[in-house]
């Protein structure tokens, strides 16, 4: 029996700066995870549809456009309606500290800003997975 952490990395909204997303895709795959990259301009609906079909454990959103206060809660809400809020919703980008805190209060996971090491994200996901999957 072989179990793999499956992660969806998506870029919602209109900004096209996908370097960060691609770096994290590569880093997570190198850490032994199966990473689905769904590309740019994803709507929250598309992201949740993909997450369900791919049966991922984790969704990581990369947002640099400033729309994080809208998009993160929307994806979380859709996951709840689909009864899949067992999925960890995390991400990164240009997100002010106070916004990170209020998003975390809503039930969104840790968010990673500029300068974060990829190893921090990997450790965070692995730790979460081990705690939440018997």
């Amino acid at each position: 029996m072989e179990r793999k952490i499956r992660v969806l990395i998506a870029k919602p909204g209109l900004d096209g700066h996908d370097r960060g997303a691609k770096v994290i895709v590569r880093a997570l795959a190198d850490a032994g995870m199966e990473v689905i990259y769904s590309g740019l301009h994803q709507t929250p609906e598309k992201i949740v549809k993909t997450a369900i079909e791919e049966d991922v454990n984790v969704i990581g959103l990369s947002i640099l456009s400033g729309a994080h206060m809208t998009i993160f809660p929307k994806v979380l809400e859709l996951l709840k309606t689909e009864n899949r809020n067992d999925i960890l919703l995390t991400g990164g980008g240009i997100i002010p500290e106070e916004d990170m805190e209020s998003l975390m209060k809503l039930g969104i996971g840790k968010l990673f800003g500029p300068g974060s090491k990829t190893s921090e994200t990997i450790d965070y996901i692995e730790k979460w997975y081990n705690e939440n999957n018997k």
Partner: protein
Amino acid sequence: MNNNLLSDFRKGDKKALARIITLVENETKKGMEIISELYSEGNVGYRIGITGPPGVGKSTTVNALLKELSLIDENIGIIAVDPSSPFTGGAMLGDRLRMNNSYDYENVFIRSVASRGSLGGLSAATENIAVLMERFGKNTLLIETVGVGQSELDIMEITDTVIVLLVPESGDSIQAMKAGIMEIGDIFVVNKADREGADRAVQYIKTVLSLNDKKGWIPPVIKITAKNNDNVNELVDSIKEHKNYLKTNKLLDKNRKSRKIEEVENLLRDMFIKNLKLNREKIIKSNESPYKIAMKIMNNIEKVDTEDLWKEK
């Protein structure tokens, strides 16, 4: 969700399908139980394999095919296989990136699959996922694999029509491909035909194909530009023709039956080797030759009279 997985699946719950696929992929006991239960019941779909070297536009072609095929019936399942790293075990699954048409159809279900280290080859897991999608109600399956190494032969085993995708620049390397990829295609496609050299590539492929003395179906060679949906309808027509050919010559059923035998072979190999690994220490300690050890194990298996196996029930 876990307890009612099978009944949710039968009710058409996509989440149940997705979860069962995971259980089967992870080779869990529960997954195997569910697949055994679903195996003999329900819908069987038509399976189209798409293979070819990296970068020829397989996912883009799947995306274009999706649009054309959904005009007929949009209950389509897609299995997109990408390689796992043999070093880290991880995988980057990026085929969905090019399949944006899928969001237009409620009934299209895509699953990205990492090849993992499965000893039974790609086909073991993919075959199971295909069966699950069929039982879920998918009438057409598109199975995409990177055509390097063994995987293209595996795809032939589990699909009804194999499309081999090439690009105009593939022309020169076709000689080299003769031994492998040229024999598995039922339909050959030169994608990115808006680029120079497409006609020449078509000619090259036709020449190589004419060297095959296989009787029966002669694979057509089609030019498309998947990105612009150019000529994709001709590809769909060829798929239909091939399907009709298989049907009228009673090959469809025959091929599917031999598929079952191959699957059993694959599974046996997989289980056998896994079992053998448990005996590693004993094998290493033994002074006997590898041949003798192998014979010893075989003798033990041959003791079972296979007739007895089928008497039960």
